[in-house]
């Protein structure tokens, strides 16, 4: 187990190294001039030279590359050219918001998706099944931000029950310990603050969770259908085992493996959706940070963001592979 984890972490090194080289080459191959992008069109030659010297853009490319890699190895992702803030600090201060949102979306998708997919498979061909299959197709093809708009329209105009922007009501004077607002409220026993943060998560969570929900319903349905047709289920039935027991031990347990894989894949993809969802709901996470970085052509942030997400994505997939072994003892980690 430990050997497996270490080997997987070591395998990450060449992938990330490749990504670093690719990103560096990519940015240098651009026609643009970073100093000019920073200073604007009316910059004097002197100020451009100054910026070039300050950021090391006047050095030969190999030197620039080594400096860049040296910084990366020390955990320095550079500074935003728009705000001057260190990129890593900005990510770390905003990441809790995105994690909260992703967890909310996943909870919505998993808690609803597995039972729905299971129910659809049990009555395959029935009305519920048809509804689920159709609904999940629609769920995959509806653009995230359009769904976010729809939710915003419905809940700001017609049914004003839920907040449609922000992470917490600004009137609540909450203490922040970890940056996870829901958790902060629990830690400081400010239950109101915690509840308010939860309520703010509902709509963005649904918007972001709909695609994973649709996919989880489909995978669960297909997987359960396949297991239901297997011999060991028939044997269990023939033995006269109670239905509930068969469902839990023989069907669900075996059907969950592909579902877990899918959940892992979706976790990585949530970051893409989060960029769009966060900006519709003014949810201050890394997604809305990237949104700003794009509009300001902030290369340091873009570059740091991609590395950061790729690393997170790889780690999530590692956890998924570890979970395999827990759920299905037949899977030996090697």
């Amino acid at each position: 187990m430990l050997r497996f984890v270490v080997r997987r972490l070591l395998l990450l090194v060449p992938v990330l190294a490749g990504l670093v080289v690719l990103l560096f080459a990519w940015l240098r191959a651009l026609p643009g001039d970073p100093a000019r992008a920073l200073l604007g069109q009316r910059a004097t030659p002197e100020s451009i030279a100054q910026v070039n010297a300050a950021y090391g853009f006047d050095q030969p490319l190999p030197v620039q590359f080594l400096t860049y890699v040296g910084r990366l190895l020390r955990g320095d992702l550079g500074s935003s050219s728009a705000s001057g803030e260190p990129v890593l600090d900005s990510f770390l201060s905003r990441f809790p918001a995105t994690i909260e949102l992703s967890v909310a979306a996943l909870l919505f998708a998993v808690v609803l998706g597995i039972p729905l997919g299971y129910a659809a498979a049990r009555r395959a061909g029935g009305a519920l099944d048809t509804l689920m299959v159709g609904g999940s197709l629609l769920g995959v093809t509806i653009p995230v931000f359009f769904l976010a708009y729809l939710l915003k329209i419905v809940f700001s105009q017609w049914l004003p029950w839920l907040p449609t922007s922000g992470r917490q009501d600004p009137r609540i004077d909450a203490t922040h310990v970890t940056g996870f607002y829901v958790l902060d409220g629990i830690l400081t026993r400010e239950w109101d603050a915690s509840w308010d943060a939860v309520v703010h998560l509902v709509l963005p969570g649904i918007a972001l969770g709909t695609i994973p929900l649709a996919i989880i319903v489909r995978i669960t349905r297909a997987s359960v259908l396949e297991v239901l047709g297997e011999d060991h289920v028939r044997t269990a039935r023939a033995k006269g085992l109670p239905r509930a027991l068969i469902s839990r031990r023989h069907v669900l347990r075996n059907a969950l493996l592909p579902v877990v894989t899918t959940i892992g894949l979706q976790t990585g993809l949530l970051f893409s959706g989060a960029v769009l969802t966060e900006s519709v709901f003014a949810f201050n996470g890394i997604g809305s940070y990237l949104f700003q970085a794009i509009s300001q052509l902030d290369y340091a942030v873009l570059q740091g963001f991609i590395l950061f997400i790729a690393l997170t994505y790889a780690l999530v997939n590692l956890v998924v592979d570890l979970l395999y072994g827990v759920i299905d003892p037949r899977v030996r980690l090697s």
Partner: protein
Amino acid sequence: MTQISEALEPATPTAPDPDAVGSGGLWHSAWRRLRRNPTAIAGAVIVLAFLLVALFAPLIAPGQPGVPLPDSGVTPSSVPGPSPGHPLGLDSPGTDLLTQLVFGARQSLLIGVVSTALGLAGGAVLGVLAGGVGGWVDTVVMRLVDILLSIPSLLLAVSVAAVLGQRPISVMIAIAAAQVPIFARLLRGSMLAQRGSDYVLAVHSLGVRRRTVVMSHLLPNSLGPVIVQATLTLATAIIEVAALSYLGLGASNPSTAEWGRMLVNAQSRLATDPHLAIWPGACIAVTALGFTLLGEALREALDPKGRK
């Protein structure tokens, strides 16, 4: 987002189809089963309808796209509703909403098709190199593909579009870039699966050159899953075009009507005029749905499990 379609499970096993047994080749029987599949027909109808609208946009649309009407009557608080000559009313810059929607179909389908074609071409080159040549070429290409796959596709598209600037062609390249690794991997896997089969061994033993084996035997027989993926990718490409527009990275020429941009323009009026967002959003969702239905049906039709 492109990975979404990839993540969908293969079609559930369907009942054996008596017609399929022993009749014609793979494509022939696939076509037969497609024609009988309601999913395929629904998808085809939707796709065809939007294609026709896109082709004949100037004949269908009541006006010119991207031209705000001089006496539009758009105020900061409201837009004019339906009126004779403007069946859906006007949008916030003061252009005819129906015209924008109709010409938007052109833009979305064009960008979607071109970017998928580019992604397919790029992926095919890499896939053939990896699966056909093998050896160290395979290793190098697949490591590159792994790296590209380690970035969520929308973010990859975002970085490419941000770098290339706001032109329609850069949006197409950006979306294609995100698809290349998926097609490459699919084609390689499919070719490797073919490589061990008897007919390939037979061709080899006849002394046919490797290049010919790869290009005229392995490649054509590996295309099934690639075509399915391309259909599904069209759906995600259309959504991604809108997403890039939404992020401020779309084609910047304001005189081209584009659904994603219409959604962005509608954002500030969500509270008062939700229909401005609902129409283009529904167009994106329905077009994407059409391609997805068609792709799913194709997958089912080409699935060996369903054929036997």
